[in-house]
């Protein structure tokens, strides 16, 4: 009896995981059915292109031939990319662009969210105004900023010269040293409202009672922020930063429209470079290899994003 019972117990111990998963799937069969169409579409429009891009990255695609005339070259495209000085320049530009844009967008957005979280006259109007850069088309914004920055008759230059602060208009986007920071400013201007909205939503979740209790206990404004508000915003901050970073890694419109990656490749970031390689120079194989590398990097970011979201869910579940 004892032996039998023991076997039965061992069997039960092995089974729960599998049968539990299956039972769980069965119980949520309707949910799976609901997401099935979306998954099917994703397989067609995402999975296949990813597969094809990976495949293409192992082929040489001379610009003078059709794509079907490609030849297999193994990892040569990857070797060529990693040994190319342009790759490292573009990668450096991409890192500066992504880190600079993400950091300053987040800090500005967070600051704006904290300011707008307080109650004051005109708060609603100000909030609406601050959202405008995020709402308007990136293409329109790029053209507007191109004229604002224009090295010969841009508004900023005219104002500075008019006020006697400069002898001639500053050169923002026709100079290899200033072009990337100038584009980052435009990107921050466009993105910080997103961070602001996210952080404002996060601020709504900070319990008022805790803040009041802290105040009663004698905590000053900074201490209340640092010990009560900020810990509550940690997860939303992580998600916001990751979303901004992913969006910035994938940026295209602003640099492409404003400078086309120039002058002298000084504002080329990965996506604009990939676009030029593929559609301007028809190096589909090399462009695909670049895309695979970018994909891998984004997967790493995606992993952290999912982990952050899972952390949020666990905390909410625990609460």
């Amino acid at each position, binding site marked *: 009896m004892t032996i039998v019972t023991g076997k039965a117990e061992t069997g039960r111990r092995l089974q729960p995981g599998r049968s539990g998963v299956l039972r769980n799937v069965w119980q949520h069969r309707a949910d799976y059915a609901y997401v099935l169409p979306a998954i099917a579409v994703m397989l067609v429009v995402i999975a296949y292109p990813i597969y094809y891009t990976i495949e293409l990255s192992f082929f040489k695609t*001379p*610009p*003078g*031939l*059709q*794509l079907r005339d490609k030849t297999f070259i193994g990892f040569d495209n990857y070797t060529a990319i990693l040994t190319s000085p342009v790759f490292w320049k573009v990668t450096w530009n991409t890192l500066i662009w992504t880190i600079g844009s993400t950091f300053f967008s987040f800090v500005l957005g967070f600051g704006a969210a904290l300011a707008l979280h307080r109650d004051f006259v005109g708060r609603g109007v100000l909030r609406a105004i601050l959202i405008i850069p995020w709402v308007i088309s990136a293409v329109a914004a790029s053209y507007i900023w*191109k004229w604002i920055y*224009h*090295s*010969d*008759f841009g508004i900023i230059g005219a104002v500075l010269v008019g006020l006697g602060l400069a002898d001639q*208009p500053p*050169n923002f*986007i*026709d*100079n*290899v040293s200033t072009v990337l920071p100038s584009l980052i400013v435009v990107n921050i201007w466009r993105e910080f409202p997103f961070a602001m909205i996210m952080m404002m939503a996060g601020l709504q979740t900070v319990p008022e009672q805790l803040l009041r209790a802290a105040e009663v206990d004698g905590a000053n404004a900074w201490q209340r922020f640092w010990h009560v508000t900020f810990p509550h915003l940690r997860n939303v901050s992580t998600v916001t930063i990751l979303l901004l970073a992913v969006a910035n890694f994938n940026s295209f419109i602003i640099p492409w429209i*404003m*400078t*086309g*990656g*120039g*002058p*002298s*490749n*000084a504002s080329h970031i990965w996506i604009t470079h990939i676009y*030029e390689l593929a*559609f*301007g*120079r*028809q190096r589909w194989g090399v462009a695909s290899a670049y895309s695979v590398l970018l994909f891998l990097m984004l997967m790493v970011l995606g992993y952290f994003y999912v982990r952050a979201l899972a952390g949020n869910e666990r905390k909410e579940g625990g609460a």
Partner: protein
Amino acid sequence: MTRISLGGAVLRGTVSAALMVSLMSASALAEAPVDLSKWSPEYVRSIAGTQDFDTAADCGKVTPLDYKGRLTFWYQGVFEGDPDLLRQYYKDFFETFRKTYPNIQLEEQALTYNDLLDKFRTALLGNAAPMAVRLQILGGTEFASKGYLQPLKPEDVGYSTEDFWPGAMKAVTWDGVTYGIPTNNETMAFIWNADIFKRAGLDPDKAPATWDDVVKYSKQIHDKLGIAGYGLVARKNAGNTPYRFMPQLWAYGGGVFDEATANPTYKEVELNSPQSKAALQASYDMYVRDKSVPVSALTNQQADNQPLFVAGQLGMMISHPSDYNVMLDLQKKATGADKDKAQTVIDNMRYGLIPTGPDGKRAVVFGGSNIHILKPEYVEGGKVDEPAAKAIICMWTSPEWSLKMAYAGSNPGNLNGFKTKWMKERLDSIKFLDVTTSMLPYGIPFPALPQSPEIMNIIVPDMLQNALTGAMTVDQAADDAAQKVKDLMGGL
């Protein structure tokens, strides 16, 4: 004794007569409708308005006017730098086509010069191209060499090869086969503001004779008046850049290959020859040494130079005769004192021949566009309605419409267009047309190679940007560009 049968004699006679007629018609066809050896403004005036054409009747012979079909068509259309006049002619063309062929369901799509190639290439990869396309002159050989285009020659739509500029026909020919028909051909001219010249102490009625003079004049204008002298354009992926730099390069005796010679072979890369470097040095001198050109040249297109010019902030530029109409359009939109200022610029606008190089060589890009029919396997739906495609091609390349669609900015691809009454009207109404038509014999086509778009739109502008930003010296930039062309030609 030889016996001659009546039947045999009739047969021989018929064959001989047919052969003679065919040779006569062949020689008649082989004769160009205009005498290119006599080309001059006076000659162009003398032939204008001497012949009438009935476009609908001519095209009806190619595709019956009651033909029922469907056509998808992409074309390089008007953009922000074009005058309103041209917009109206494009509108009129499609309205007329729909009236002439009421049973052809036309789905047309206009794309700008800088977007068309990228979009077209992408569509081809997905077998989603249109049935017919009008591409910039640079694009013909790229797509023909890859096998995307159907053979198509002027004779297929009722015209003769000799009706078109020989240089333009080269751009649609690959491996001895013709794959398209030129719609328009253009050569630009040199434009200057006489008032600025006068205020800068230059002869207001005299264009700079050489490119070295352009460098000197540009500096003098900048130093004396504090404005930009010459409208340099060096943006990447913009057609405007090669159209302005290549004439300079060729005038100095340089080139990408030997495309400026009578019989180019495209074998040797000459982008880093001493002559090519001298041309690049001239641009460097204007941008870096003298700072006499717009600082924004690296991100500018010609459309950005136009407001500078009409505002009296730019002394010289290279462009089409249509820029005069663009200035008129811009002046209409100006208000208050700006309107008067713009009028002063327009009154002082002068056109002249593009300057020569140190050895007296004058050159200009022989530009334009071509129209093509795609192979069915690359077209959305896998079918090409050939009669419908030929109908629109016949109309666009007709003497009437090849002229009207090039009314202000270009010249008719079909040489018979010069004989129409609209050419006469155009000569009277479009100022400075004489100058740009006078530049036609100096026109040099871009190399008729599939690699030309990358060379002209990416490698040449990159070379300019590398030198002008100081990222490389002039020598390094030229050597780097030459190496890129070699790699490209070697299939890398």
